């Protein structure tokens, strides 16, 4: 089996560093001939994934991002060495509630799920790996 070409990125936790990830995904998406629409959706999901890894991992350790290129799709892994969490226990937000809620945030997971074709979290107290996939073909 041939190994899929993979771009890997290690990012320190610095302001706006998530933009390095989006610029990388843009070039990779272009290389794969993904549409601009898909490319923008990937970027947006990636921003949210990076911010979560930066903010919620509660570590100062670098994060890792892998872009795995295949003929059918682009798979992105966002890996932090942080405290972990139970993604299935996170309630998805609702705008009507958020308008009156004290806490307005909590949109990242929802956006990632809506913008990508497949999303999976593996997480324990040694860290979190988010694996998300965008298919080349639109299957709506």
């Amino acid at each position, binding site marked *: 089996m041939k190994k899929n070409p993979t771009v890997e990125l290690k990012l320190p936790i610095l302001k706006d560093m998530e933009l390095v990830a989006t610029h990388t995904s843009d070039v990779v998406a272009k290389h794969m001939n993904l549409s601009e*629409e898909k490319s923008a*959706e990937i970027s*947006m999901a990636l921003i*949210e994934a990076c911010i979560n890894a930066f903010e919620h991992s509660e570590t100062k350790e670098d994060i890792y991002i892998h872009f795995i290129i295949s003929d059918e799709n682009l798979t992105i892994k966002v890996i932090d060495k942080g405290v972990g969490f139970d993604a299935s226990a996170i309630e998805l937000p609702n*705008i009507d509630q958020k*308008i009156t809620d004290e806490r*307005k945030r909590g*949109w990242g997971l929802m956006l990632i799920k809506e913008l990508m074709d497949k999303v999976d979290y593996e997480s324990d107290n040694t860290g979190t790996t988010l694996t998300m996939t965008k298919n080349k073909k639109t299957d709506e």
Partner: protein
Amino acid sequence: MSSITGKSIRDGIVIISTEGYFNKDLGEALKAVADEEIKNGHKNFLINLENSKIVNSIGASILIEIIEDLQSMDGSLNFCNLAPIIAKTFKIMGLTKYCETFENEDAAIAKLA
């Protein structure tokens, strides 16, 4: 990288323009300007995002704070010149239930004024 680039008032609508990544900082800068204009008695706002092609959910959450403030005074928050991905993001979040979006400033003013 991110900043407020303009503020003007047209037919009673406060128009605020931004540039660059719409992140937490830019969200907070926008809220500060909106708060000031609310104090000045304004309650209808149009945010021109033509030069902000990318947003994050922290920036977008701050927009919900502005919506909450304006709701209590029967005001409105509106947007124009949204990049497709920002329009999509606002739709997924449900912001579009509380805000109108327009092609450009002229279309917005024609409807809102």
